[in-house]
């Protein structure tokens, strides 16, 4: 049974956000007998409520509260109030994610040492190594049921994958397969196998794709130690004179402000909302916001170097049928500066339905150049580029000076400029993707610009030294020992891999640390 805890209960761990980080941390702590409240800004929609319709689903799940943008990225021009395509709902962006579950590579934990100093990039080594995280990656892969790990078979390749694989073979790529996906290829963990329905981004109606909504959260609730409070928008974290956090002020479903007392607070609201909340919690003792003595809160915003390549063929593909992202090429993920950039990128199958293809293929585009592309929608194949982008101090989340949300909280501004390395990598990937499709007979290819960000990272970075970042190697704030960051905002650098598996692994590791520290009474 889900335990309803009292607002005045100051023995609980309060987690803000119920996605990959918050949802996992909540369950892990609850399994250890620790009382947890998860405050989730969004409503609770169970998986049978999900909608196989792109715009209707967007209205149901997406975080559409106002945000502003600045910088030279094209999203700022085309979608000025939608910098990110992430979720406001119980389960967070694990309802929307594609399921790709890759470990970061060893060198990606040591980017400053590996790539050296790069002008305009705020590179830093993580305070942990791949070896530190490996045992937790193993636990996370088992928890998520990642295909091609733990003897779980890969998903069958759909039409879009078959086109990618044929092109990969022609180009001589060696590592192309349908893994590693947190989507059941056979029934597991009381969840269905994938039925090749498509609409992975709209929430899996079969529950075949892992989401905290129907795994971690109900499992945590069953212990009696976890309460998920939906429609609870965190506004401010309070602290006492000793500098320890004491509770979280949130707007409840009626917009009324409440304060939930806490022994420990863990922030897991995604890389835009988490720094927004820390900055908005500024006080006379912490005038620049909580945990911000380094001045790094909100900085080093990363979104992965992304883009898509779509190819049109003279025969049908029907790329939208089946799993959206079960297909990957890993050959370009290595660090090989001879290509003209540091770091690497993955190529992953992707498709959009006709409504979103019209919105995202070339935002603002019109006329026959645009429409003849859509005319061949059912003859299209598609892939997504996801590569490591450079952290930059200038790329950051700030509180907007004038615009406030319905609760009077300043909205977040998201500033992003591409680093020259990002641009070089994207152009390389566009060329490879186009060559791949041309090799299988594409008559036309489209280098499609990045969508609003789905991988938002780095704005409360982890660092060895307190002066370089916001949290330590356990995600614990350098400045405040009972304040934690539990989402992708703690990434020191982004790696080339989809971040969810790493977020989950860090959350499992953090839960062990919090439990230890609690029993040692040090927090």
């Amino acid at each position, binding site marked *: 049974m889900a335990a309803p805890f009292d607002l005045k209960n100051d023995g609980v761990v309060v987690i803000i956000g119920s996605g990959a980080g918050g949802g996992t941390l909540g369950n892990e702590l609850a399994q250890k007998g620790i009382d947890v409240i998860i405050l989730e800004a969004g409503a609770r929609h169970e998986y049978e409520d999900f909608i*196989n*319709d792109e*715009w209707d689903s967007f209205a149901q799940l997406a975080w559409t509260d106002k945000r502003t943008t600045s910088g030279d990225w094209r999203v700022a021009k085309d979608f000025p109030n939608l910098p990110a395509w992430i979720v406001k709902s119980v389960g967070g962006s694990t309802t929307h994610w594609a399921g790709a579950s890759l470990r970061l590579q060893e060198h990606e934990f040591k980017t400053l040492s590996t790539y050296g100093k790069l002008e305009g990039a705020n590179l830093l080594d993580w305070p942990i190594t791949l070896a530190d995280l490996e045992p937790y990656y193993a636990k996370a892969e088992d928890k998520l049921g990642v295909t091609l790990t733990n003897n779980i078979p890969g998903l*069958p*390749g*759909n*039409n879009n994958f*078959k*086109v990618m694989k*044929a092109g990969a073979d022609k180009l001589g790529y060696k590592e192309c397969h349908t893994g590693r996906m947190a989507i059941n290829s056979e029934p597991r963990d009381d969840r269905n196998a*994938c*039925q*090749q*329905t*498509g*609409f992975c981004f709209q929430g899996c*109606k*079969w529950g075949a794709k892992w989401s905290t909504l129907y795994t971690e959260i109900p499992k945590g609730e069953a212990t009696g130690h976890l309460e998920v409070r939906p429609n609870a928008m965190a506004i401010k974290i309070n602290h006492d004179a000793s500098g320890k956090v004491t509770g979280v002020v949130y707007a409840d479903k009626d917009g009324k402000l409440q304060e939930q007392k806490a022994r420990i607070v863990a922030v897991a609201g995604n890389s835009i909302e988490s720094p927004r909340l820390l900055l908005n919690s500024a006080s006379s003792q912490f005038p620049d916001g909580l945990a911000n003595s380094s001045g790094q809160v909100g900085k080093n915003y990363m979104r992965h170097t992304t883009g898509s390549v779509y190819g049109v*063929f003279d*025969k*049908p*593909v*029907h790329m*939208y*049928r*089946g799993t959206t992202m079960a297909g990957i090429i890993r050959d370009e993920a290595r660090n090989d500066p001879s290509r003209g950039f540091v770091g690497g990128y993955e190529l992953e199958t992707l498709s959009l*339905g*006709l*409504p979103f*293809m*019209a*919105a995202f293929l070339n935002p*603002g585009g*019109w*006329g*026959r150049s*645009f*429409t003849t592309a*859509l*005319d061949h*929608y*059912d*003859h299209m194949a598609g892939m997504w580029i996801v590569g490591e982008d450079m952290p930059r101090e200038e790329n950051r989340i700030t509180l907007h000076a004038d615009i406030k949300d319905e609760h009077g909280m300043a909205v977040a501004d998201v500033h992003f400029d591409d680093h020259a390395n990002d641009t070089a990598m994207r152009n390389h990937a566009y060329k490879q993707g186009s060559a791949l499709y041309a090799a*299988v007979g594409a008559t036309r290819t489209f280098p499609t610009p990045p969508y609003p960000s789905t991988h938002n990272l780095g704005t409360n970075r982890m660092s060895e030294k307190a002066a370089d970042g916001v949290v330590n190697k356990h995600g614990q704030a350098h400045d405040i020992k009972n304040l934690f960051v539990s989402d992708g905002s703690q990434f020191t650098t982004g790696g080339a891999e989809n971040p969810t598996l790493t977020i989950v692994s860090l959350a499992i590791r953090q839960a062990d640390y919090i439990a230890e520290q609690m029993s040692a009474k040090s927090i």
Partner: protein
Amino acid sequence: MVTIYEKKPGLSRRELLKRGSVGALLVISGSAVISPEHAWGLQTSALKPETMATLIQMARDIYPHDQVPDKYYAIAVKAHDEQADKDPAHKDLIEKGIADLDLKSGKDGYTGLGWEEQRVAVLREIEDTPFFQAVRGGLVVGLYNQKEVWPIFGYEGESYSKGGYMARGFDDIEWL
């Protein structure tokens, strides 16, 4: 709700010729735009029917799909009439925008230009205006989110109720 209704033209050829006609396809009758050939009509409430007819042509010129009938473009721009009904500023934006488009197009107006290229040249002149962006932006959802047009593009839409594509061709590609 979009009020598009099937309508038999019921007009003689002579009557048709007497009334104002737009291009070769759409006829203005009272407060409606009618397609005599395809038996549909669109009633306007705030915008002039002539404005609506020009908007339909403009919509097709912005997102030309020769296989998509006018009816779907009409449905896509109908929202501007509904919004104009509620918001005088929007009515002004559209009416003035269309008037300006006609002015820039010469003595026979926008729909008097016979070739798409000629009309597109005029649209290029105004593509940064709020009017153009309102029409184009509205079409992205208004046109492409109509379930009835999806099959024209080979998009099958919702699939959960059919059990997904497991047994319906998720891997049926044969030409590779």
